[in-house]
């Protein structure tokens, strides 16, 4: 029973929850969006600085559960230096990972984000894991309206 929990709350996740990376507003951002998960009241803001189609910097702000905070934190780490297209692909792969799709279907290298694989056993937590990513997508689409995972 606890082993399945350990799979969900991996060390890396707990660490990123405790000390989130790239946390705070980003003055140089030229894209940003806000996301909301009504189920747990989580709110996240994602800031992106893009230059010539390349993601120079990403940060996030907000309060959430461990899964959503760690997911946002790891997301920001994994995006720096990627093109917008690569970022979108990574988002698809991440989504497949946490919803338990076949590994072969991942459209690109998931790397460190693999720590979120345990989420697939907790369908109600998928929304927590994907909130930051949905918000990223909204920012990339330059949506002004807040997104929700409902």
């Amino acid at each position, binding site marked *: *029973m606890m082993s399945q*929990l350990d799979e969900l*709350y991996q060390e890396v996740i*707990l660490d990123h*929850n405790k000390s989130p990376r790239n946390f705070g507003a980003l003055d140089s951002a030229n894209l940003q969006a806000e996301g909301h998960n009504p*189920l*747990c*009241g*989580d709110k996240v803001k994602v800031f992106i600085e893009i230059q010539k189609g390349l993601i120079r910097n990403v940060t996030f702000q907000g309060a959430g559960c*461990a899964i959503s905070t760690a997911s946002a934190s790891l997301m920001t780490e994994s995006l720096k230096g990627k093109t917008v297209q690569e970022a979108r692909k990574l988002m698809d792969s991440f989504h497949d990972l946490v919803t338990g799709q076949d590994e072969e279907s991942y459209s690109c290298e998931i790397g460190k984000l693999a720590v979120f694989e345990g989420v697939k056993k907790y369908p109600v937590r998928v929304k927590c894991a994907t909130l930051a990513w949905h918000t990223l997508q909204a920012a990339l689409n330059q949506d002004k309206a807040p997104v929700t995972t409902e």
Partner: protein
Amino acid sequence: MDSPGVITQAALDVDRVRQDFPILHEQVYGIDLVYLDNAATTQKPRTVIEAVTNYYSVGNANVHRAVHRLSQVATEAYEGARVKVQRLINAADSREIVWLRGVTEGINLIANGLSAQFKPGDEIVVSNMEHHSNIVPWQMLCQRTGAVLRVIPIDESGQLEMDRFEELLGPRTKLVSVVHVSNALGTVNPVKRIVDLAHERGIPVVIDGAQCVQHYPVDVQELDCEFYAISGHKMYAPTGIGALYGKADWLERLPPYQGGGDMILSVSFEGTTYNEIPFKFEAGTPHIAGAIGMGAAVDYLLSLGLENIASYEHDLLEYATEQALQIPGLQIVGTADKKSSVLSFTIDRVHPHDIGTILDQQGIAIRTGHHCAQPVMDRYQIPATARISLCFYNTRQEIDAAFAALRKVQEVFS
């Protein structure tokens, strides 16, 4: 300690009570279920399940419609259940009990029915601790009519600021609608006093009783409120059924809620004569099985005795509160003097959602989130709480299990 001839035994025998609830003997993830989410919905005793099954097995027919035997049997059971609900809350007349889906529908019915009487600038007073179902229907009314919602603040302990309530009552106040017992905080509100203060100024009062009738005896005549709404599923009855009490003269003055069968006396294309109360509000084939199940739930509650239930649950809450105070970093949200068996809390550095998942893995069902009471969360500036809500079939051992699991949560996040 027990001396012969002195009854020291609790009036409520929890082991026996637990035998009445089949689901309490189920397992989740191979572990015995510990169900501590009773404010969301309660489990059903066998008598309720059997009443529903029995209706479908041997008594199924539509009500108020046919001359055949089964229809009469169904109608008697359905109307009999109405009388049981009437007795539960001591309404003067069973015509004052309208069958509906629950509190949400009850409040929507009132808000729709009263709409025409509101003018721009009229005020409706609710409290900061309302469930969304006692906020949104009034906001919708305000949008339609230009009326304004006013809010009674709550203090740090989760009690209504009664002075502020009095100040809010003015010439523009047309209605007060407040929750009897808060689902998010457990606060038991002084509704009798609220009704008295409102009535001194001729203002009618609606009470959301969703979290009250299953815990305490309620007497609507003594309260003297105009409306009192309850939900079956929170008082050990099926989902999809509930009741709205309304004083007969108020119900008579309200227009029908929906149009259709059963709510009419006669229909022609020139016009329709509406049925009498309560049928005027019961358009269409109702949830007959649900109503019968709710009648059985009333019988069950009364057989245990609401005084016994209240005192047993009070002990449980005290026990759980003591345990909670021993957990470092745990803050109880809602510490009113008079509280139902609800323990809402937060734990430093751990989001309630993570608490919920970790407890769930140990077979313990609690609720985490905003409990459909976002203004309460905003009041305390927290996104969510974890909530243990107890009832008469819970035990001290279950509370121990929950707190052992909470210690595990703190380990994971240490």
